[in-house]
């Protein structure tokens, strides 16, 4: 939250700029001034070689591009609760960097690798609901002189106020193969691994919130999940899609898309099949207005109805996109990742245009931030 003093200052700045007849010089101050108290919605993503982009989806233009020192990868993003700071997994999965979206300032950096232990987080990044803690799950390997030694993964807890040389303030053993992660409103951490785990970040106590690999569902194959994109902030959920075969090996074998989902406000969990598996989906979000309508993306954009378990609509895209998100009012669908353009569609899949970035987004997350 910002103070009334800052608001006044912003307005003044904007007025000065306007009086000076400057060309459109986009700044947070101006953006806010444009609609007084109106909160603007921005898209935030990473692109190669190493830039964090803040994008105005209405104007279809990049508002700000922040250089982030280090090599690209994975580009997994999470936002602070005030949505003004983006934390990015960077430098070949080894660093977490916090960037102030309003001015590109680097406000946080944790180098996870230390000494002869190399630590990488594939897509495991979360921020506590009060913004004070940042969590990663680190895949660790000890680099001996002539061999690698795979170590047990660990959940690392950082203080977001620790600055540019942050060290973990606590670590706990973590399961292998964890990808995406989210913090619920009650502070519990949810980790997408073999199962969806619920972790108390104060104690490291871990339990299975949703059984996936270890579910007991006679007549179903084990599920297969590709979960690399930490979206879900718009609908307030932690969502992982999966594919599964019902009656595997039988004459009536049928493949489905399913979802494992945690409501980040209530902590409620669910796991269910939502539509037939007819095409690949890399990432999925639900419609913020209707929790049982899902949008999925890869080389198609699709709308799935979990109530009827039908594919409502599917269109071919001009190329592959990895990551999907929606506006907070649900009227816009944003597609990013893979290549260098963000596509915008409305909820009837009318093409609303593209925003070209200077580099490929690859595996980066596409987040929606309001400030």
């Amino acid at each position, binding site marked *: 939250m910002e103070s009334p003093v800052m608001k006044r200052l912003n307005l003044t700045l904007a007025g000065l700029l306007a009086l000076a007849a400057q060309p459109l010089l986009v700044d947070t101050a101006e953006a806010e001034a444009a609609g007084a108290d109106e909160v603007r919605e921005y898209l935030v993503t990473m692109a190669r070689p190493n830039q964090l982009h803040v994008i105005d989806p209405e104007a279809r233009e990049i508002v700000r591009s922040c250089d982030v020192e280090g090599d690209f990868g994975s580009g997994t993003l999470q936002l602070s609760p005030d949505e003004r700071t983006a934390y990015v997994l960077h430098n070949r999965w080894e660093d977490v960097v916090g960037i102030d979206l309003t001015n590109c300032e680097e406000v946080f950096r944790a180098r996870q690798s230390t000494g002869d232990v190399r630590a990488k987080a594939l897509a495991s990044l979360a921020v506590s609901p009060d913004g004070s803690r940042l969590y990663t799950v680190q*895949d660790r390997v000890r680099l001996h002189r002539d061999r690698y030694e795979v170590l047990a993964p660990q959940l690392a807890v950082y203080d977001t106020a620790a600055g540019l040389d942050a060290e973990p303030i606590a670590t706990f053993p973590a399961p292998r193969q964890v990808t995406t992660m989210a913090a619920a409103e009650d502070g519990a951490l949810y980790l997408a691994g073999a199962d969806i785990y619920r972790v108390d970040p104060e104690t490291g106590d871990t339990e299975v919130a949703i059984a996936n690999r270890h579910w007991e569902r006679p007549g179903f194959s084990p599920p297969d999940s590709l979960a690399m994109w930490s979206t879900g902030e718009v609908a307030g959920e932690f969502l992982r899609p999966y594919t599964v075969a019902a009656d595997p090996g039988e004459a009536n074998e049928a493949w489905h898309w399913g979802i494992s989902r945690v409501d980040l406000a209530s902590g409620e969990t669910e796991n269910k099949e939502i539509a037939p598996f007819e095409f690949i989906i890399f990432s999925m979000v639900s419609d913020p207005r209707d929790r049982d309508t899902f949008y999925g993306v890869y080389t198609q954009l699709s709308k799935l109805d979990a109530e009827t378990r039908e594919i409502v609509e599917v269109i071919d895209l001009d190329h592959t996109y990895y990551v999907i998100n929606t506006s907070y009012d649900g009227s816009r669908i944003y597609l990013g990742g893979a290549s260098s353009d963000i596509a915008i569609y409305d909820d009837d899949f009318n093409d609303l245009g593209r925003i070209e970035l200077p580099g490929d987004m690859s595996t980066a997350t596409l987040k929606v931030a309001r400030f």
Partner: protein
Amino acid sequence: MRTLSPLRGLCLVAIASTPLMAGADPGEQAIDRYCSGCHQAGGDDNGWSRISAQRKTPEGWDMTVARMQTMHGLELPLEARRDIVKFLADTRGLAPEESAPQRALIERRLNRIESFDHPSYQEMCARCHTGGRAQLQRRPLEEWERLVHFHVGQFQTIEYQAMARDRDWFELALDEIAPWLAETQGLESAAWDAWQAQDAVEPAGDWQLWGHWPGEGDFYADVTITAAEGEDAYALTLDGAFIDGRELDGEGQAIVYTGYEWRANLSLNGRDFRQVLDLSDARPAGRIFDDHDDAFGMRVEMAPREAATPGLTASLPASLKAGTRSRLVLLGQGLADGEIDLGEGVSVREVIERRDHRLVLDVEAAADLTPGWLPLAVGDVGADTLLAGYQAVDRLEVSPALGVARVGNQATPPVSGVFSALGYLGEGEAAIPLGRVPVRWSVAPWDEIAEHDEDAKYAGVMDAATGIFTPAGAGPNPMRRFNANSVGNLRVTASVEGQEAVQDEAQLIVTVQRWNNPPLR
């Protein structure tokens, strides 16, 4: 900015501080100089750590050294790399029996479907590389376990990929795969002990070699191998011809590893090739192939020009069609004298060349030739099942049944689809192979999706006469749905010339480039 990883850093420091140790062999010296900083001598390994506890092919060792260069900052001259590979392949190689099941992989015959006697090895390991790649290594359990650790350390996403993210990959690799490999491919073996006790094969001398050059035809060549400067190094010349009389000449340089692994660089009629031969057999066999377009190659056999026992070893071609006149080349020993009898209905119109090891004939097969084997007799030597005659082809067999071609460009050359069609007389086990018979080739969409996406139009061009498919150029194709590359899923059909109903088909997947092309895939 490139980050110096701890492993990289540690080793560089160690290398710099390693004194030059004197070894008898240049390879041994090079290992002491370039490797022992990290792979320290002594301990239980009885040699350099890690290195001494493994046995591999020359390609396997070369890939290891290459990885040390690309991933761990090792810098060494090319000559040292060669010396190291030579020394390790000689002293820590595979016996012929050990490499025998995977000759196809060493010879870069990649259009095969592997199968293994393990329930999950294919999904656990052979989803990324051939299963054969690990089958060409020997290690004790600890080293197989370290290989598992290496995989997770080197390829950080390995546990997250399809067929890994649905299982406890790391635990399964350690608990199920490593012990199986240690049991079936342990470091110690009687075969290796026995091979090391044997004298190395001496390739210098006069040989004749034969094979089939795709699109050009059957060929034969006199090969002269002479010792060259360097350990187990040889020079070779090839003086031969296609059976239609066109010349085939070439030369090359070779090194023999492990006492039998012949590796040569050849220039044949001006085109560069690699050659792999297993010299452990009295009649060495292997393959000559294009290093960049490895589907383009020819399996070859080689026999001493002066064999101990007279006999016929090969007929080029393997069959004659009734009512045709053609060249026939018979290879063997003791062919210089005596009457030439090619079976009933085949007459010799002209003897073009007659030498002790080769006959080149102009022959005519009668129109009323009786289909079946044509018993051959040249003087005192003969062969009853080397040449067949036919009126019509009963059955056609296209190989490979599934081929993979790759689009390409200058930086990443395309990989061709190379198909052959073998004819047969009769059915079942009693069928008589006719070898390559004249066919016409075509491609069509494999399925409805391929038809819809017009794969046959975009993916490349099949040469109707040769069965060689030339893939299209690489990169997104704006003419296609999703800007897809010019990939395709095609049905390859061969039909016998003059017998269109006699056909066989194969599947050809035309896909994108491979960016990482080590000698063992």
